[in-house]
């Protein structure tokens, strides 16, 4: 049976009727049509589905949507301040060529956001460890780390 839930995504509250077996990721992509959150492995290995739940980076493919009521969820669509102004992390990723195919990018940027929020000046090693739950199949890690370093000093 569907359950009525209210989900706060990117500052907007959505009243939804969802089956309890729907993952947060399916609801974000298929109900809210926010397709910036990617589905990679679907088993918690790749980090492509990363979103922020109350400021912490989590895997939306391994969370039931019914469990995420009362939490503040941020997806990549909610990161920029406005339509014509990117978030400093997004800006840095563009400027440093830290995006190749782009599939891992939303997850990496949100993981980096949570990292910089809790540790504004991470060392290179802390960045490497911090984003180790995000796989980039283009293997563009060097540029990704450069971009995060640039964003922290921006």
């Amino acid at each position, binding site marked *: *049976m569907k*359950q009525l839930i209210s989900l706060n995504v990117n500052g907007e509250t959505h009243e939804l009727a969802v*089956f*309890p*077996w*729907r*993952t947060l990721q399916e609801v974000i992509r298929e109900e809210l049509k926010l397709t910036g959150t990617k*589905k990679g492995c*679907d*088993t*918690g*290995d790749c*980090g492509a589905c*990363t979103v922020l*739940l109350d400021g*912490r*980076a*989590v*895997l939306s*493919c*391994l*969370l*039931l949507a*019914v*469990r995420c009521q009362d939490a503040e969820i941020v997806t990549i669509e909610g990161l920029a301040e406005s339509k014509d102004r990117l978030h400093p992390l997004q800006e840095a990723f563009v400027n440093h060529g830290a995006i190749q195919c782009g599939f891992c990018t939303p997850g990496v940027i949100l*993981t980096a956001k*949570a*990292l910089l929020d809790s540790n504004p000046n991470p060392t290179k090693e802390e960045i490497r*460890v*911090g984003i*180790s*739950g*995000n796989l980039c199949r283009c293997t563009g890690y060097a540029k990704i780390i450069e971009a995060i370093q640039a964003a922290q000093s921006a």
Partner: protein
Amino acid sequence: MRRMPRFEYHAPASAGETASLLSEYGDAARLIAGGTDLLISMKQRLSTPEHLISLSSVTGLDAVDYDEKTGLRMGAAVTLASLTQSPPIKDKYPALEAAARKVGSVQVRNIATLGGNLCLDTRCWYYNQSDYWRQSRPPCHKTGGEVCHVVEGSKRCFAVYSGDTAPILMAMGAEVKLMSGGGERVISLGELFTGDGLRPNAVEPHEFLSEISVPPPAAGSGVAYVKLRLREEVDFPIMGVAARVTMSDGAFGSAPQGFKVVLNAVGSAPVEVEGAGEMLAGKAPEQAALEEVAQVARASVHPQANTAGTPEYRRMMVPVLVKHALTEAAAAASS
């Protein structure tokens, strides 16, 4: 695309409500805490419970308390990330903090719980696969069949226990509380593990793990957990060792009970190395003493070809990691 199987969802607010839901649904129900392991098993159709009982709304199940006399108490639903950030744990049990940090990725630790990590199901290359992948072989013991794809002709399952917080908590003498409608029972953490690959823990279908307690750190004692894996982050262990030692005037303490060595991911439960205390007590903390324990540890385990790393490599690494863990624990005790 892997869709979840259907189930009915329950989110009890109290331990009592949880217990009554468990006694109502029994084997048809599974508990879900973080769900970072269970949801994968469900997507792979390894587990298809009719009812999921969530522990995330149960009051008080994520508390962490420390008392100098009674020690540390942790609710089973505390996340691994909160463990690594908890002041009493960072201060009094730094090795537990370090072990919790070695589980999964940042994202996993933000959701995964301590109780879930302890009750982690055993794993095997031939088991933790999609239903489609598994169709190409006859079902194994763990999926309801009668064969083992790892040890030909075996009547039992060799799936590996891989929880990283269990060995260090066993080394520290932790106990766990199991609650049910009929009351509660407290057992040592070692007793939680059955050694049976099919049913790795002793939690009955009507029970749930509610609390983990650890005695206060004894004077002069030090603990450490060393984890071997293919990548330095994210991966499950291909082998792990937890050690506790007690130091006195630069030598190992004289009481054998001040020592414990626990091997991880080499069998269906964490394995305590028998006689480690007797071999170490009163000795100088040098290679000779460590070597004896390391060789006994190596002889006591038989890793199988069911996880990353060949059995030969994992077995060769047992003495290496035992010596690392003992050296680290001795350094922690002296500092």
